[in-house]
């Protein structure tokens, strides 16, 4: 039997016995469809399980992060400070905010109250406490003006804005007061200061005690300091300069025996005074608002109305309707040896 006949003969016999199209194909296709359905069902179940897992994980993570957000944040941020060594968390008792500070500053910082936050003083080895930096809190929309030079916004909440003062200014003032080694510590801290500010965490708005405590309470506590500062400020602007100047010019211009010359000298003096208008000013303090007050330092916003004095009736008449706009000054006084000493006077507007 040759190959062709063998194939034909065998094919004939197998074809008579077996029919793939009739007996197998339909079943095979049904099996494939069934398998495909199962696979699709499994995929759906796996997808559903995956979605469920993701949702459950998200929910868990959300709850977990809500419960541990503050701690986690501090932990994460502590990494920055740990680069520079050990750190500790300063939690402000009144304002509730936290700062992560390097350990080497633990015994180097003294804090004092402030109307708008906390003042941090560098406590040197020889017992001196010198201002280093401030954390100031301003209620949004209040009349206080936080836009002072050297302050940077470090955090904002719905109600409050938190500012930090420039530590470099503080260190500059330290340099003349304390020993070099102490300054080096402060300068080292200046390097770590941005990380401390990065770890700054404000308290929830309703936990900021200063506002529940109220400014009135605070003012009562510091009333004496304000009064003293007021008196000092008042004295500062008694037109003393004018009186002294007038006395000098009087001697210079007034002839002892000539009324006319007296008048002319006065007129000349007045002319001079007019050129130096500042000398004619009488400063009237119309309002002083405590800005930052504590036991050793007072800052006030002084609203001062300046008016021209000692004019001829004509001049007064002529210029009486001209009113000077009140000016605002930031006055700073420090309590040194029991006396308030003016350390800063700056026109704000």
């Amino acid at each position, binding site marked *: 039997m040759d190959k062709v006949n063998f*194939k034909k003969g*065998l*094919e004939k016999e197998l074809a008579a*016995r077996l029919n793939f*199209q009739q007996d197998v*194909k339909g*079943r*095979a*296709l049904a099996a*494939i469809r069934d398998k495909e359905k199962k696979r699709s069902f499994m995929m759906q179940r796996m997808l559903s399980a995956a979605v469920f897992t993701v949702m459950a994980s998200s929910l868990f993570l959300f709850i977990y992060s809500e419960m541990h957000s503050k701690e986690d944040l501090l932990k994460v941020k502590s990494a920055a400070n740990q680069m520079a060594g050990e750190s500790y968390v300063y939690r402000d008792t009144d304002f509730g905010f936290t700062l992560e500070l390097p350990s080497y500053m633990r015994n180097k910082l003294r804090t004092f109250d402030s109307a708008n936050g906390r003042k941090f003083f560098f406590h040197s080895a020889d017992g001196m406490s010198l201002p280093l930096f401030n954390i100031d809190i301003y209620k949004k929309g209040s009349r206080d003006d936080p836009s002072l030079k050297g302050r940077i916004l470090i955090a904002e909440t719905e109600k409050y804005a938190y500012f930090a003062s420039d530590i470099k200014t503080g260190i500059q003032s330290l340099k003349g007061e304390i020993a070099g080694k102490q300054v080096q510590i402060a300068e080292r801290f200046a390097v770590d200061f941005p990380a401390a500010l990065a770890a700054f965490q404000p308290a929830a708005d309703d936990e900021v005690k200063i506002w529940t405590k109220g400014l009135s309470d605070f003012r009562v506590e510091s009333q004496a300091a304000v009064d003293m500062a007021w008196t000092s400020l008042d004295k500062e602007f008694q037109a003393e300069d004018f009186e002294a100047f007038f006395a000098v010019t009087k001697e210079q211009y007034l002839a002892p025996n000539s009324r006319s010359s007296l008048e002319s000298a006065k007129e000349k003096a007045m002319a001079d005074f007019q050129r130096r208008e500042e000398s004619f000013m009488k400063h009237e303090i119309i309002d002083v608002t405590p800005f930052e007050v504590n036991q050793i330092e007072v800052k006030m916003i002084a609203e001062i109305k300046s008016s021209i004095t000692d004019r001829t009736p004509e001049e007064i008449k002529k210029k009486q309707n001209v009113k000077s706009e009140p000016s605002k000054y930031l006055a700073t006084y420090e309590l040194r040896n029991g006396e308030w000493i003016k350390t800063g006077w700056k026109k704000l507007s």
Partner: protein
Amino acid sequence: LQASHSIKLSAEMPDIETIMDLYGEDILHIIYCYVHDKALAEDLAQEVFLTVYLKLASFKEHSSLKTWITRIAINKCKDHLRTNYIKKTWLSNVMHGFLKETKPSAEEDCMVKDRGEGLLQAVIGLPVKYREAIILYYYQEFTVKEISSLLGMNEATVKSRLKRGREKLKNKIEKEELL
């Protein structure tokens, strides 16, 4: 998968139904020659095409599609024969006496010959190792090289088995004709 023609495998590949149309009969015949049981051959053929459908994405085209499907079919058959060897051995021992008595009568042999099933019976009567070589070479028309690849043996062995298979088959057919 409402319609069978929707079972499309890829842009390049024919869909599974077309594959079945092309190779279904041949595969079923090969399987039958291995297992010599119609129902079992149909079940195994169904399994083969299910496997083809599931694995077609992994088909690398190192060989022809027919060779690939044939290899799947041979593996299925051999798996089946292996797993059923113990059962078959036990069954053959237990049923030996009964089977002897149920040997086809001369009348039944004539009926088989009338149906033209002598050749198939002769082929199926060959030992598997010769049977598969004969079927693949003479019936499926694979080359010796292809068969060596399909069966995982060298070409000389294939040739040797073909030679021995031919001799055995010739003897069988001649013996049947004498009867």
